């Protein structure tokens, strides 16, 4: 069985001069085409590393990652990527920043300019195409970087805690914007976060990762229909799922307990 993104017993070991650190230890999961999957876990648990490996930006120590039926062996161009920081280029306008991947890949500019303008409209930035990043708020900058991730119509969208640097209200707005975008473009998406509510609100499935060395310990299907509204967050079912996930994460956080048990056995 393999999905559109298939991660198969992936391990990642960093070797420093002093010691070796196992960042990811035998993670396996699949993401179906058009599915939105969150990876939830404590900070520094290796979930970002896993995402970078899916983008082909980090090598694997062992295991395989396949996207769209081909093995990922280096940066693959059909990936839209978002980081915690907006990584906009301060001297380029909103439109130029969105078209940056098009320019680098030397694709026909006229064709993609229309798409960029459509995306600007979609994320509510009409009238801001010629502004520079320093003239935008934090939330607006992340909207621009969503547009940049989508401009070349990539087959997967990888997001590494894209909203964790924003204030709570802006973050709620960005979650709604991202829901709209994923309903409209139906991109196969992997979303890394450490916010339980954000993961449940946005996702079709939530994967829970343990502390380092990271591995996937739970795979929870989120039953809410799309399109979703903010009222989903007030339902008993939503809060029940959140509580269950919190329990899973807290269980994993018990320091050294599972390790000691294993050694004793």
């Amino acid at each position, binding site marked *: 069985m393999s999905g559109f993104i298939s991660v198969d017993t992936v391990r990642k070991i960093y070797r420093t001069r002093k010691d070796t650190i196992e960042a990811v230890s035998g993670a396996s999961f699949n993401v179906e085409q058009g599915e939105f999957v969150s990876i939830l876990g404590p900070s520094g648990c290796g979930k970002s590393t896993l995402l970078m490996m899916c983008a082909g930006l980090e090598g694997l120590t062992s295991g395989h990652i396949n996207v769209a039926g081909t093995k990922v062996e280096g940066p693959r161009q059909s990936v839209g990527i978002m980081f915690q*920081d907006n990584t906009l280029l301060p001297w380029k306008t909103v439109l130029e920043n969105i078209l940056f991947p098009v320019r680098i890949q030397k694709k026909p500019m006229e064709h993609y300019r229309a798409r960029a303008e459509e995306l600007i409209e979609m994320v509510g930035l009409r009238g801001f195409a010629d502004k520079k990043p320093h003239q935008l708020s934090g939330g607006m900058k992340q909207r621009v970087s969503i547009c940049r991730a989508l401009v070349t119509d990539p087959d997967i969208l990888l997001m590494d805690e894209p909203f964790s640097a924003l204030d709570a209200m802006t973050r709620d707005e960005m979650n709604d914007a991202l829901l709209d975008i994923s309903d409209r473009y139906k991109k196969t998406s992997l979303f890394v976060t450490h916010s339980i509510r954000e993961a449940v609100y946005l996702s079709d499935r939530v994967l829970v990762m343990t502390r380092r060395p990271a591995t996937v310990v739970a795979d929870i299907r989120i039953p809410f229909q799309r399109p979703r509204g903010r009222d989903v967050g007030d339902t008993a079912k939503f809060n029940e799922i959140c509580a269950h996930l919190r329990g899973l994460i807290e269980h994993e956080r018990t320091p050294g307990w599972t390790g000691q048990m294993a050694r004793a056995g």
Partner: protein
Amino acid sequence: MSPDRMKAGWLPENVYAVVLPSLAAIMVVGGWQYAVTSFQISPVIFPAPLDMAMAAPGIIGDLFHHAGITGGEALLAFVLSCLIGVALALMLTVSDAVFEAFYPNLVVFQIVPKIALAPMFTFWLGIASTSRISYAILISFFPVMLSTMSGLKRADANTLRLCRSVGASKWQTLLHVQIPYALPYFFSGAKVAATMATIGVVTGELISANAGLGFYIIRAQSLGQTPKVFCAIVALCVLGLLVYILPVRAEAMARRWWRGGNG
């Protein structure tokens, strides 16, 4: 001084910015004039401002002529040291091997008191302007190289990941991301280089030349015409300022491009 106290004064706020420094300067010059006159110091030992003012009209043509020569050489040395500094910074950034091989040596080379090498340049390259320009480049390319290098490393890890992810080549990353990020850093190095280039050329002229303000100073001094020496020093200050304005203006242009006209 707090803004409240400024407002309580007897002049509009913006006038203070002009009036106070001018007043202080006039007091210093006046004090200088007073001290030289009252202690009856000979103008050959230490000329008073009035001695300089009397000497100036007769030599203004000479000063312009020699300032033109010094200025031209300083400008050329400045532009060349910017080009060399940037070229070296790019080479050291693009190639790890070049960096490993040369960077430690360049730092050690920086410790050499290069003023001691100035006479050697006359020995090697003669009395022609090539010798002074080469020496000026030697002492001014380093700040450009160092600051440009740190600027080229300014792009953060995620921006570089983004570049790799969209398939940017090393050169595309350099051109579209690293070089624009390095611009403000380059300019701070270039401003240091502009000062150093002028100093380098004048140092060379003090040692050996047949024209230029440094040459003029040495000649006037040997003839005991100290007021002329001081006039030439004032001319040198003005010249240094003019060369310095070049990178300042270029930086302002670059900043407008960075931040946008209405930013």
